[in-house]
Each structure stands twice: as structure tokens, then as C-alpha cells.
């Protein structure tokens, strides 16, 4: 259990992120300077991203029993760090006018990213819990960040309390489930529950294992906001400042999904029919509930929250399919879809973030009326993101959905595919409703952009995301190949 230097090298990205957080703290400690803090955070995350990307080609090892640094985890480390960096950039103009200490936000962001990186690298309950709680703990802070400000636009306090209480309860589920699995298997690493049940080691019975697995799954389902554990999502999304919402919706979801994927693959949980059934029900319920709930929503954040419920349901289909399908196609599907989901969510929230600020959140659908004629580029990006969420070609969302369909067809999950189609059909309505609002004639001709230089960087982020959206939508082959390679490592 001793750490060697060769163990430290694979941990470089994690260490870099940690270093970033620490450095930012030191900077704040020496002198409060908003821009400097932001620059330090962004630079650190950027370096971590690059280093992780460079390491991908040659790193594949277990570092202590807790973390596995393989190509898959590095892939998601890259995505996580990059997303965190994007969110940091988006936060910069958003928080610029906050009547409070602004710098600590980036510390929280950095720490949350540490948690996320740990999560995507974990194949051990301890590291899962450590990562998850580091992430959650920081997010409570990020969600509640403008709580001191008198005229903060929304209800950060309410959001944070709700998130905290429910999330802690869910952590409780997960921990209890882990304890039961541990009682069954005697190890805290992700490992096959099934073998033990069937093997000679004294197991506690299949029913026991199922309860254990389902409790863990319930906890994870909460974090992924799968129905019926979804109810916190819209309130927390709505109440948080948009960059925090973005973080919650992207990194928070993706990290957890990677854990779920590794856990399901390692534990052979799908050998139990009960688990398959429950997961299928969760997927179907999430797809239908998410889309139906979003149907007539007037608040963009709530729409995106509900739609994220549905999207998590979509991805779950591929996870279920992984049990039936030979080869790694369904893992690739999950991976690609998560990537796509990150891009489009970042983009969609990014647009909302750019036109909002900490004192006035523009998250009502009417705020977007006529955006196409007032800020055509923003509207174009937003349209692209929404269409991608709806799964329309030319965008990465279509390729993602294609993957899901492919996995579903190979696994012959007809009922879930039907749910996917119905859900997507309903989804079209509310995505297009926003698009329609944007192309309507605007009553007033004011442009909805925040002031110059600060938001320029945010525009850059949106542009990068939009280009990614299109490139991956039109020519996804290179990324597909990469994903094919890394998925084989799970």
C-alpha cells in the first residue's frame, strides 16, 4: 500500500487539479484579485486537461486499490477538466458584479473538480464516496454561493438546502448498500457480486445481494436524477446560479455515470433479472417523466433540468444493453452520449449564462423571444444545442442518439426503444418551443449581451462548443475510434 513515484505519475492530472485549487487559495490568501484567481484556476485546469490528454496513450494502471488510471478514466478526466475550465470561463463574467467575495467560488470549483476526477478514476467504494462527497460538498457551496446577496435573482438557499438534505440521504442509501455488498464480498473494491453468490464462499444469498445492489443503484439514481429520484433536480437547477447549475448538470452527471458504468460492469449486477427490470423501469420512467414534466415549462433551467432527467434515462438504455451485447458497442454508446451530453448541456447553459448575470438571471422562456434577431450568433449556438439535445442530424446529439439506438437494437430492447422514441417525440415539442420563441419577432430591439471584454472569453467557449457540436455531428469518425479503443479497457 505504499505509494511510489511510478504511482504518482499517473496521478498527475489529479495532482494538478489539486494544485490549482491550492494555488488559487494561496493567491486569494495573499491578495484578493478576482481576475487573477480566475486566470490561475483556468490555467491550472487547462494544464491538467492537456496533461491528461497526453497521458492517455501510455497510461493504464491501478494506482493503489482506490484509483484506476486507464485510458477511459483519463478520457473523462480530460472532459471533466475541460468542462470545469469552460465553466470557470463562463462564471467569470457572470460573477463579475456580485456584491460579495467572488474569489472563493473558484476554490469550490477547483475542489469539486478534484472530486469529479477522483470519481471518474475510481473502482473502489472508498474512492467513490470520497470523490462523490468532495464533489457534492463543493457543489452545496456553489449552489448557495450568492446566498448573502440581498437581491440575488433566485433561491440559492432553498436550492442548497434541498440538495444537501436529499443528497445526504441518497449518500446514506449508497453507503448502506456498500456496507451490505461489503458484508457479502469482503472487499470494498468493485467486484463481482454474482460470483460470490454462486461460488463456494459463504454468501448471504441472492436476495441480499439484490437489496445491496439496488440500494447503491438508488443512491446513484438520485445523483443522476433518474425518476422517481428526480424531484430535486428542477428546484436545485432553478435556484442555483447558472454556472453552478451547469456544473451540476454536466460534470456532476457524467462523473456519476462513469461510476455507475464501472460498477455495473464490475459487479455483474445485470445478471440479476430484478436489477435489469429495475434499471429498465428507471430508464423508461425517467424518459417519460422527464419529457412530460418539461412539456409546458416556462423556465429554461427547469426545462433543461427535466430534459436532463430524460437524457439520463436515454443513456441508461445503453447501460442495460451492455449486458446483452457482445463487444463494447454499448459502452461506446454511453461514452459518446455522455460526451455529446456534456457538449450540448455546456452550450445550452452557457448561452443562458452569457445573457444572465448574478443579479439578473434570464431563465424565463420569454427572455429569449426574438433572440435570433437580437443576438443571432448566440441564438444560433443555442438553437444548435437544443437541436442537438433533440437529436437532429448535423449535431453531435444525433450521433449520440444513433449510438443509443444501435445499442438498443442490438440488445433488442424494444420497449425501451419505444420509450426512447416517444420521449424524443415529446422532447421535440419543448426544444422547438424555445427555438420558436427565439425566431419570433422581438418586441424590443435591445441586445442581450453583457458587457464586452469579460464576456468575450465566454463567447469563445460557446464558439468552441458549437464547433465541436458540428464537427462531431458531421465527422465523428476520429472520436469514435478513440472511444472504441478506450471502451475496450473497461
Amino acid at each position, binding site marked *: 500500500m505504499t505509494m511510489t513515484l511510478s504511482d504518482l505519475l499517473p496521478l498527475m492530472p489529479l495532482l494538478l487539479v489539486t494544485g490549482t485549487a491550492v494555488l488559487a487559495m494561496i493567491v486569494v490568501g495573499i491578495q484578493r484579485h478576482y481576475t487573477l484567481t480566475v486566470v490561475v484556476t483556468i490555467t491550472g485546469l487547462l494544464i491538467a486537461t492537456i496533461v491528461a490528454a497526453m497521458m492517455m496513450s501510455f497510461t493504464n494502471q491501478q494506482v493503489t486499490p482506490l484509483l484506476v488510471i486507464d485510458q477511459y478514466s483519463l478520457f473523462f478526466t480530460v472532459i471533466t477538466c475541460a468542462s470545469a475550465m469552460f465553466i470557470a470561463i463562463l462564471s467569470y463574467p457572470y460573477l463579475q458584479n456580485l456584491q460579495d467575495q467572488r474569489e472563493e467560488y473558484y476554490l469550490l470549483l477547483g475542489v469539486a473538480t478534484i472530486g469529479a476526477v477522483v470519481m471518474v478514476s475510481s473502482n473502489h467504494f472508498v474512492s467513490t464516496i470520497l470523490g462523490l462527497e468532495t464533489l457534492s460538498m463543493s457543489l452545496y457551496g456553489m449552489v448557495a454561493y450568492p446566498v448573502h446577496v440581498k437581491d440575488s435573482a433566485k433561491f440559492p438557499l432553498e436550492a442548497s438546502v434541498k440538495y444537501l438534505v*436529499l443528497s445526504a440521504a441518497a449518500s446514506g442509501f449508497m453507503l448502506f448498500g456498500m456496507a451490505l455488498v461489503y458484508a457479502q464480498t469482503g472487499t470494498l473494491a468493485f467486484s463481482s457480486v454474482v460470483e460470490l453468490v454462486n461460488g463456494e464462499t459463504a454468501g448471504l444469498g441472492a436476495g441480499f445481494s439484490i437489496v445491496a445492489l439496488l440500494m447503491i443503484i438508488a443512491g446513484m439514481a438520485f445523483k443522476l436524477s433518474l425518476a422517481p429520484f428526480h424531484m430535486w433536480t428542477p428546484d436545485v437547477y432553478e435556484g442555483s446560479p447558472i454556472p453552478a447549475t451547469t456544473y451540476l448538470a454536466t460534470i456532476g452527471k457524467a462523473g456519476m455515470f462513469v461510476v455507475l458504468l464501472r460498477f455495473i460492469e464490475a459487479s455483474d449486477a445485470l445478471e440479476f433479472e430484478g436489477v435489469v427490470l429495475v434499471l429498465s423501469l428507471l430508464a423508461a420512467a425517467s424518459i417519460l417523466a422527464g419529457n412530460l414534466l418539461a412539456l409546458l415549462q416556462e423556465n429554461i433551467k427547469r426545462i433543461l433540468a427535466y430534459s436532463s432527467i430524460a437524457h439520463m434515462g436515454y443513456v441508461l438504455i445503453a447501460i442495460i444493453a451492455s449486458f446483452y451485447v457482445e463487444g463494447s458497442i454499448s459502452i461506446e454508446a454511453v461514452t459518446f452520449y455522455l460526451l455529446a451530453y456534456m457538449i450540448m448541456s455546456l452550450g445550452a447553459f452557457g448561452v443562458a449564462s452569457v445573457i444572465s448575470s448574478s443579479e439578473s438571471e434570464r431563465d424565463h422562456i420569454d427572455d429569449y423571444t426574438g433572440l435570433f434577431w437580437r443576438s443571432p450568433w448566440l441564438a444560433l449556438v443555442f438553437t444548435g444545442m437544443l437541436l442537438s439535445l433533440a437529436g437532429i442530424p448535423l449535431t453531435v446529439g444525433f450521433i449520440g442518439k444513433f449510438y443509443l439506438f444501435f445499442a438498443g437494437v442490438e440488445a433488442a430492447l424494444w420497449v425501451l426503444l419505444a420509450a426512447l422514441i416517444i420521449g424524443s417525440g415529446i422532447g421535440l415539442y419543448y426544444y422547438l418551443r424555445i427555438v420558436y420563441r427565439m425566431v419570433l419577432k422581438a418586441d424590443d430591439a435591445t441586445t442581450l449581451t453583457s458587457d464586452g471584454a469579460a464576456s468575450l472569453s465566454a463567447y469563445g467557449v460557446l464558439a468552441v462548443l458549437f464547433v465541436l457540436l458540428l464537427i462531431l455531428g458531421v465527422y465523428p469518425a476520429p472520436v469514435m475510434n478513440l472511444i472504441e479503443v478506450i471502451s475496450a479497457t473497461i
Partner: protein
Amino acid sequence: MLDLIWLLPTFPLLGFLSLVLTSGRLPKPIVAAIGAGSVGLSFALAAMIAMTFLGSGEDYYIVETFTWMSVGSFTPGFSFYLDGLSLVMMLVITGVGFLIHVYATGYMDEDPGYSRFFSYMNLFVAAMLMLVLGDNLVLLYLGWEGVGLCSYLLIGFWYTKPENGYAARKAFVVTRVGDTSMAIGLFLLFAHFGTLNIQDLMHAAEIEWATGTNLPAIAALLLLGGAVGKSAQLPLQTWLPDAMAGPTPISALIHAATMVTAGVYLIARTHVLFELAPDVQILVAWIGLITLLMAGFTAMTQTDIKRILAFSTVSQIGYMFLGLGVGAWSASIFHLMTHAFFKALLFLGSGSVILAMHHEQDIFKMGALRKVLPISFASFMIGSLALTAFPFTSGFFSKDEILLAAIELEGVGFWLWLGGVVGAFFTGIYTFRLMFVVFFGENRGHHCEGEYGGWNMSVPLMILMVLSLVGGFIHIPVEAVFSHGEAHEEHHASLLIEGIMIAVPLIGIGIAYLFYGSKTLSVENLMASSLAKNLHKFWNSGWGMDWLYDRLFVFPFMWLARINAKDIVDQFYGLVVEINRAAHQMIVRSQTGYLRWYALSVATGLVLIITLGVLL
């Protein structure tokens, strides 16, 4: 010479195109020259072609131009087939057509739609020529639909009046019912013989189909459907009287002389098929008989000069059908030709009367016109005599032949003959009722300034008068066409029968004289009884056929259309939307905002999935 036959429809078609493309910008004389001239050219050419053809002694002549379409074995071409039958038809169409065109140059003189009128007329002639000259049924169908279209356009020529539009649409739709039946017949024939070339079809049918079997009967019935539609026979006769809404030259050309006889032509053209289906053939006769009687009754009750003539047309075509039904093919075609002469004459005459009376068409508002309108009177007189089959007028010969052929038929022949004779009796009554009321008696108030129009209206009338008188002596060269269908011996009718056939119309004329000429008998007295009143009303309405069809077809269709205007299928999707909405409203209520409620849902979810998982 014969190879130039494709020019026949081309001249009027060019006339049509030039008139349409200039769309009313040409001065009237030029329009008249193009309109009438193109048909005149066609007539001249047709006459030359006729002489060449008759001189050549050939039975038929085919001119192929180009293949219309070629899809697998389906290769109809723009090919023309000339034989005795199409020769007669083509001469009647171009000849009578030319006269009517000339007449129309005067008749339509004051109409703002002068150019439009002639463009439609030219198109009609072109289409009609296509119909009779086409060597395959698809080309025939092209002409068939084309004349229908022109008929529609010309009935609704005065488009500002909604009732004219209604009449036009009624004419088109009712005939379209027949056309559809005919189209299905075409499909059937093609499905069985792989060709729609008429001559090939007839040969193939003779060889492959046995007489009296089902298939030829069905095919013949379907074609008959087309024929009764176009020729206004029972049960599709209702459109023709309403079609009188068009200008009078139209009524003369389309609704008397040419188009309405297309059904007769079709049956004559495909007579082989009908001979293979004797039941259907006799049905043709019965349809003709019943139609001619019904129309005869109705004609006696009408007061509109053109409607009387219209019902008389229906009735006369009934004779032709009767003739077709009894196998008197050439007699029918003969009657077709003579009818074209005298009915065109009557209509044109009535046109002169109507113009002179300032568009008054009610005969009871006319009277004593014989002095004021001598030419009209003369044309009416000659036309009426021919119509009533007064001896040695044209109508006499042709009708005679049909009735004699009928009585020679075994079995039902006598009854058919008797019906035809009764019809002739009515013909006498209603024709001379018209004559006496309009041209004799006293003037009933309407001021009339004498003949309207110049030579261009009177000369055609005179030519038609001559034709109506002597047309019966023309020999139509159709023997070769019907060579294998018809017995060619002279009819040997007994003197008694001849006598009856001559006397009955005269009796009819006499009765008309007693009622309307000398007023010895009073219509009022006759009408006193309620039975007579009701009968009058019933006949006047055309035996209530319109009433019946309205209730059977029109009203239900309108009703269905009205109640389902919103498209019930669409409502279904509306329902889906509503369900989604309702589901949203329901489920969104679960988002109460209360933390404890959310916690409850999480806990319930946990219990639920564990229960499910463990139970399975």
C-alpha cells in the same frame, strides 16, 4: 392526302392556342376568322380526305404519328384510324361545327368574352376530332375528357351567375361518373388483352371471349357507363337540361349535334364487344327506350324553349341507343347524323328567337313570331318536321330504320318498337306545342324587333335547313365497319306498320294543334285534376331524378364533408396532444416544492425498487 389526317384536329388546336395566348387582345374580326376559319379549314380538309378515302375503296386507313407513351406492353400512340364510321363523325363534326362557328360569330357579337368563347369552341372541335379519330381507347379517352372539359367551360361561359357554374359542374361531374366507369373498363380490357388499340382489342375479344360470358358483359357494361354519361341517358341524363345554361351555339354544337352523341359513337365503335354480350346489348335498347319516353313526357311540360329542345335531344339519343341495342348500328349512326342536322338547326333557330326576344326563353312569353322572324320560323318549321319524322324529311328515314330494326328483333322487339312509336307520338306533341305557342297565336307582350344578326347567322341556318330536309337521302358509308354485325337486307315492313309509324307523329301534331293552335281543347281543363297537376309537376321535374340524386348522393356527400370538415383523423392527434398535456398537468403537480415530499418520493422509490427487485 389521307396522311394529312393529323392536321384535322391540329387546325382548331392551333386556333385555340393562338386565341388563348393572345387572350382577348385581338380585334373581333380576326378572332372570328381564326375561330371559324380553323374549323372551316378542317372541314375542307375533311371533305377532301373523305373523297380520297371513298375513292380509294379501302375499308380503313391508319395514320401513325408518334408513340404517346411506351410502358411495357402499354404503347398507345397518337395514331388516327379512318373508316366509314369515323369518316361520318368527322364530317358531321367539322361540317356542322363549322356552320355553328359561323353562326356564333354573329350570335356572340356583343359578348365581352368573344375570344374566350371561340378558343373553347376550337378546343372542343379538336378534342372531338381526337375522340372519333383515335385508333386506341386512350386517345379516345383523351378526346372524351377534352370535350367534357370544353362542355364544362362553355356551359359555365357566363360565369358570373352561380347557377351557370352549378350547371357546368353538374355536367362535368355527372359525366365524370360515366368516364370513370369507362376508365375502369379500359383497365379491364388492358388487363386481359394487353393492348388498348381498338381494332386489336375487337379482334382479340372475338377470339378469346365467348358470347354471353361474364367478362365481355362486364367490359361492355363499363363502357356503357361511359356512354350513358356522355350521351345523357338513364341514369346519368340529369345534366343535359341544365347544360342549356350555356350560350345557344354551344347547345347546338356540343349538347345536340356532336358531344352528346359520343356515347353512341363509342358503342358503335366497340360494337363487337356488345355483340359478345347480348344481355348488355339489349339493356342498351331498354335504356334508350325508357330514356326516350321519360324525356318525351318531360319535354311536354317544359316552358323554356331550350329545355324543351334539350329533353328532345335526350329523347332522340334514346332512339339511337334503341337502335344500337337492337343491332341497327348503321341506322343509329344515320340518325346521329340527321339528328345533328335538324337539332343544330332547331337550336340555332331558337338562338335567333332568344336574341330577338332579348334573352327571353319562356315560350309562353312569346307568340306570333312567324311574321317577325321569318328565317327562324322557317328553320323551326323544317327542324320540327324532321324531328317529328315527317315523311321524307331526314328524321323520317333514320328513325324509321331504327324502329323497323327493332320490330324485327325476336321477343322483346315488338315492345321496343311500340315504345319507340309512342315516343314518336310525344315527339309530335311537344315539338308542335313549341311551334304553335311560339310562332302562332298572339304576341304575349314581349317586344320583338325582327331578325337579329346578318348573313353569318342566316346562311348557316339555311344550309342546315337544306340538310335537314334532304339529309335522309345521304348514304353513309359504314357497311364495312359493321359488316359482321348487321343483317343487310332491306327491311320488309308491312304496310300497316309503315302506316302506323307515319301516322302516329301526325296524330301527335294534331293534338298539339287542338290544344295550342286552335285552342279547341284547353290545357287548363286538363290540368284541373290534382292527378294531372301532380303528374305535370313530376314530369316537369324530369321524373324527380334530380330530387332523387340530390338525396342519394349530393346531400350525403355534402353532409359527410360538412361534419368532417375538421378531419376526424386530425382530431385523433389532437387527442394525443391533449393526453400529453393532461399527463403533464398531472405529473407536474408532484413537483410541490416541499422538501419532505421529495424525500418521501425518494424513500418510496427506494422501497419500490427493492420490492420489485427482490420479488423477481
